[in-house]
């Protein structure tokens, strides 16, 4: 708890660095930097969402990429129908994600541990197959967006820099929301259900309701990341919800240190930069990434979870 003021400083520092990045990109005359950074922002939102339930609720969801896909397809489907407003895209994504999270969460949360991991993975795969067979939207191949979302009817996001700052604003907003949630009474009960659900029940809280609420909130937040990603790539396909992507989200949260919100943002940055760097070294960067992952898990004492938790 005494680290809270430090965390506020670290957050200010991190977000300021993000805010200054486009200036550096202009200075270096490297537009690709902004493209990478926008992707980082989107994944940071998703990792933040996952950390809320993984770090604070002890729920290892291995299917969070499903919400990326739901957010992305909300943009694709509404745009096809002629609705291009960013606000409406976000609203649709959040509503769809809430329904999906409520139904799958209610079933998954009846179980614990290994079961929970496998069931969230299976439901994400179900969503994946749903969009694969949706031939109206390109099925397996996906669909290219005609244009990015509009703001107040204006194509403001066509500029990469504007899209970047929109993403940053969403990230900062959601970060502050997540901090508020974890500090609230609700957040404390949630942490309590992670530590000892039986005792929480004994003092009069229903763990299931708190966990399910957190699961739905997390899903809604992650769908915002999907809206961002769709706008960044101008392309939406079922690959957004591939189970590898769910795995990468868990990796990001753990790289940054779980149960620490800011760590999830740092973890997304580290993981994506590592990918970019390894991809420069070799076309088969996944071997190196996997190797690093295995070694880090095996040789940090008590595993990553223990390693990071001691330091926080």
């Amino acid at each position, binding site marked *: 708890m005494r680290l809270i003021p430090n965390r506020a400083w670290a957050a200010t520092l991190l977000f300021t660095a993000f805010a200054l990045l486009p200036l550096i990109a202009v200075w270096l005359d490297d537009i690709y930097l902004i493209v990478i950074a926008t992707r980082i922002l989107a994944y940071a939102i998703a990792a933040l969402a996952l950390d809320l339930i993984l770090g604070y609720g002890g729920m290892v969801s291995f299917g969070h990429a499903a919400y990326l896909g739901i957010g992305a397809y909300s943009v694709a489907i509404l745009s096809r129908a002629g609705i291009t407003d960013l606000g409406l895209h976000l609203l649709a994504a959040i509503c769809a994600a809430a329904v999906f999270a409520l139904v799958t969460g209610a079933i998954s949360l009846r*179980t614990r541990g290994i079961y929970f*991991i496998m*069931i969230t993975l299976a439901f994400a*795969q179900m969503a994946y197959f749903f969009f694969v067979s949706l031939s109206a939207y390109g099925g397996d191949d996906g669909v290219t967006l005609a244009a990015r979302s509009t703001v107040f009817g204006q194509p403001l996001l066509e500029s990469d820099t504007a899209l970047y700052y929109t993403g940053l604003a969403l990230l900062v907003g959601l970060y502050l929301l997540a901090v508020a949630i974890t500090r609230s009474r609700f957040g404390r009960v949630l942490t309590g259900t992670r530590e000892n659900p039986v005792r929480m029940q004994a003092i009069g809280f229903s763990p299931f309701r708190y966990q399910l609420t957190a699961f739905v909130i997390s899903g809604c937040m992650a769908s915002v990341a999907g809206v961002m990603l769709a706008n960044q790539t101008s392309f939406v396909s079922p690959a957004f919800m591939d189970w590898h992507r769910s795995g990468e989200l868990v*990796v990001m949260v753990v790289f940054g240190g779980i149960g620490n919100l800011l760590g999830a943002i740092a973890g997304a940055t580290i993981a994506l930069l590592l990918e970019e760097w390894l991809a420069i070294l070799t076309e088969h960067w*996944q*071997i190196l990434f996997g190797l690093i992952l295995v070694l880090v898990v095996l040789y940090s004492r008590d595993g*990553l*979870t223990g390693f990071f938790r001691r330091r926080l």
Partner: protein
Amino acid sequence: MTSLFLIQFLNGVQFGILLFLIAAGLTLVFGIMDFVNLAHGVIYMVGAYLAVTFSQLTGSYGLGLLLTLPATLLVGLVLELLVFRKLYDRPHLDQVLATFGLVMIISEGVEVIWGSAPLSVRMPELLSGSVPLIGPLRYPVFRLVVIGAGLATAVALWLIITRTRIGMRLRAGATNRAMVSALGVDIRSLFTIIFAFGAMLAGFAGAMVAPILTVDPGMGESVLILAFVVIVIGGIGSVKGAFAGALLVGLVDTMGRSFGPIILRSFLDPSAAGQTGRVLAPMLVYILMAVILSVRPAGLFGARS
């Protein structure tokens, strides 16, 4: 209609048997070691690739299959000694991450060695024909052989688990790991054996389907997640449950894909029925899982959740 039903029924059983071979190894590892192994699917894939290579080297699919078994057993042993052994006492999250890392390494490694283009292996001359079922209806011999081999494996597994000393230890280990260890059973070597054996079963499954499916780097992934569904439905740790779950999933998936649109056509117009059927069919097994879980959270044969 009946003939189509019979063919699809056999296809479903064959798919179910295949899932059982993969799920059996997974469920033993889950039940006894409380260990999540995401890398089980890639071992199935490695089995298929090894079968292709060994068949080409020896010129015979049978020999290739025989060589694949000890090779995948070895793969399982090496992975257990190098990685899994260090993870048994770790939280599930660590196990998931480390085995996810292995999935990345092995699937990319397979692409480096064998390339990303799909491969195939020639079916042995002897088994490439088809046999008459009823009337003009015929069914490929090889698929029947797959069903037979899978059933034989299931029986052998059942005998090992219920009739042998190692099976007894295995059952005891699943019930109470600490007690078995305290009674002087070397639980570490038991774990190693189970792991390697599970890997061999997955490799066997991969080698069996190499002649009927294309062998490509993505083949392990979808099967892994279906094997998870099978285990969740059957109940973690139960081989009986894995068998029942595998047949159920195999049949529902195969039948749903072919009969879903036909059934829907009776109350929807044909184009809508076709469209809905195509969307719903791949989701059926997951809906089945959801329904079973809401009735029995521990699965059909599961003792604990």
